[in-house]
């Protein structure tokens, strides 16, 4: 088993063919979408024509990144059970989206979550504050994805890191710039179907070696690598830290701008609700697959081989593909992983560009008086600008440990975006000062504490001991944001916001006047 020699990292004809087929199809879709993407509602929200199933797949596509596919399978292949604890954390945010924000978001907003927060408050301060929260979330998420993708492409195809980053940036800009939300949605749907189909095929082939008996697979893992593989290990060493990370994942998912934006692509609240049900099922199924893939890689590829190819285990799923389906299947899965990277960065870039053009340009700089054509011009420039920034950040952070940035993105989303969103939906007394204070407090506390935490203060800056004890700040920063929101609203109340609450309720719960 341990003599297994991989062809990973060498140019692979099948993966190149599959990859070019994917690029050709998605660019053809982009070309068709380009003809329809001239209006704001088409560019930002795919003309609100996406069905429940389509949006479910697109939401799942946005969330199932290459990092979670390869990273979680790798974590399971090296550490066993602990990988499952990690994936559960990423799933439990989805029911929260459904129960607390999906329908209000659809009924009250137009293109961004700032639309909802600013619904009855003063536009300028709220949009500026919400844009900071949005852009920081998008940027940290984007850096993590870009750096991860450069490293992955290098490992998978043997391409130089810089070439990989520039290629990802160029194709992603083409999707968003020409095809807007419609093309981005279809790229997500195609990628989600390919990823789920590829992972399912891999699990079926792997389980065929165990007589289609999952228990036999787990037993084999325990026989070779010890019973500890089937038991929880050291992932929850500090309960408060685990609680803090749990809060970030649970409520951060409900504050990710690129996810929230998808609820504007469906025609109504009822479809939004259905799409979360489909997305949760698909993502849950995906995590079950990655768990089995991780164990199968542990047994069929061998833990030492996985660790030798990449110390973090990131190549476990690809190695298993080669063992179960040969070079052709490896090529297919590698192409799917690359497609996954492209789709996720495209979704993030669109969300960032929308914040710049819709929230900042149209509603702050032009105070809502800009023409749709002007706003679209800015949106397209913002797309190119953000795409270039993403490439530059990817190059700047080459070889650095950026894993903490995903945690940071979730912490900011849970602290800056989610509390203000929930307060504005649920509490009549929310004032402009309160909501802005909540966003600013959440952002500053989350970013500040993570700088002082073990992940950055010790691991990156090289200090001996952390100033803030936990790896994740959300247990402090999220309550701080709610407190700031309450204090600001109580001390600087907003009579106009109070008087508009009744109208907001009608639109929120009955959908009357929703766009």
């Amino acid at each position: 088993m341990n003599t297994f020699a991989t062809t990973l990292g060498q140019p692979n004809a099948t993966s190149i063919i599959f990859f070019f087929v994917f690029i050709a199809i998605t660019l053809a879709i982009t070309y068709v979408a380009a003809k329809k993407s001239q209006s704001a509602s088409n560019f930002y929200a795919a003309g609100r024509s996406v069905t429940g199933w389509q949006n479910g797949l697109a939401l799942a596509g946005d969330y199932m990144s290459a990092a979670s596919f390869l990273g979680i399978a790798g974590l399971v292949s090296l550490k066993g059970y602990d990988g499952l604890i990690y994936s559960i954390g990423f799933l439990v945010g989805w029911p929260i989206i459904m129960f607390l924000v999906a329908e209000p978001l659809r009924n009250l907003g137009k293109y961004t979550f700032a639309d909802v927060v600013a619904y009855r408050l003063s536009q300028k301060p709220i949009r500026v504050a919400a844009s900071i929260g949005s852009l920081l979330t998008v940027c940290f998420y984007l850096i993590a994805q870009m750096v991860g993708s450069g490293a992955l492409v290098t490992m998978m195809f043997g391409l130089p890191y810089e070439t990989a980053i520039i290629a990802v940036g160029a194709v992603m800009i083409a999707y968003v710039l020409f095809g807007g939300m419609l093309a981005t949605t279809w790229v997500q749907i195609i990628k989600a179907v390919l990823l789920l189909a590829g992972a399912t095929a891999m699990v079926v082939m792997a389980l065929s070696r165990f007589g289609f008996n999952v228990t036999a697979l787990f037993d084999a893992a325990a026989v070779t690598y010890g019973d500890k593989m089937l038991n929880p290990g050291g992932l929850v060493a500090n309960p408060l830290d685990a609680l803090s990370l749990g809060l970030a994942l649970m409520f951060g998912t409900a504050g990710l701008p690129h996810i929230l934006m998808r609820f504007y692509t469906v025609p109504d609240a009822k479809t939004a609700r259905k799409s979360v049900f489909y997305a949760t099922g698909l993502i849950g199924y995906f995590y079950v697959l990655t768990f089995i893939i991780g164990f199968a890689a542990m047994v069929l590829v061998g833990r030492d081989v996985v660790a030798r190819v990449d110390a973090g285990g990131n190549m476990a799923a690809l190695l298993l593909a080669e063992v179960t389906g040969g070079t052709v299947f490896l090529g297919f899965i590698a192409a799917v992983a690359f497609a996954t990277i492209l789709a996720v960065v495209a979704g993030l870039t669109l969300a960032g560009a929308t914040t710049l053009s819709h929230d900042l340009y149209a509603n702050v700089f032009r105070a809502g008086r800009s023409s749709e054509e002007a706003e679209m011009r800015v949106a397209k420039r913002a797309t190119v600008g953000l795409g270039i920034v993403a490439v530059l950040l990817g190059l700047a952070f080459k070889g650095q440990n950026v894993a903490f940035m995903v945690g940071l993105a979730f912490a900011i989303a849970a602290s800056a975006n989610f509390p203000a969103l929930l307060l504005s939906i649920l509490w009549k007394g929310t004032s402009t000062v309160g909501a802005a204070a909540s966003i600013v407090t959440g952002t500053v506390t989350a970013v500040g504490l993570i700088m002082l935490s073990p992940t950055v203060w010790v691991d990156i800056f090289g200090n001996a001991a952390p100033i803030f004890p936990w790896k994740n700040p959300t247990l402090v920063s999220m309550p701080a944001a709610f407190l700031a929101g309450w204090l600001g609203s109580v001390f600087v109340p907003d009579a106009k916001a109070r008087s508009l609450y009744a109208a907001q309720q009608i639109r929120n719960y009955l959908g009357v006047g929703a766009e």
Partner: protein
Amino acid sequence: MPTSATATAACDPRLFAALVRKRWTVSLALTVLMLGIYYGFIYVLAYRADLLATRLGERMTVGIPVGLGIILASWLLTGIYVRWANGGYDDAVSTIKCAMQENQG
């Protein structure tokens, strides 16, 4: 952004208030349930990890079906909400909207 519906909503404020209250009772109950399941799991991991290491078969542990069960439970909770909302909630919404239109006409 406020619409002309503001005035007409007053046609039956009690019905509307009850609808909103019911919606949040259901949502918050399901949210609390989700929080309970997830943090219950984290609590067990932190303080009673040995429970999850209990053997089920020859080597298989309780932890694996529990973990996969939490994934399934999260999905079922979203299903329960959709079922509730597609039934009672949507009906109540259309009733109130009809009443509003009659009042307007």
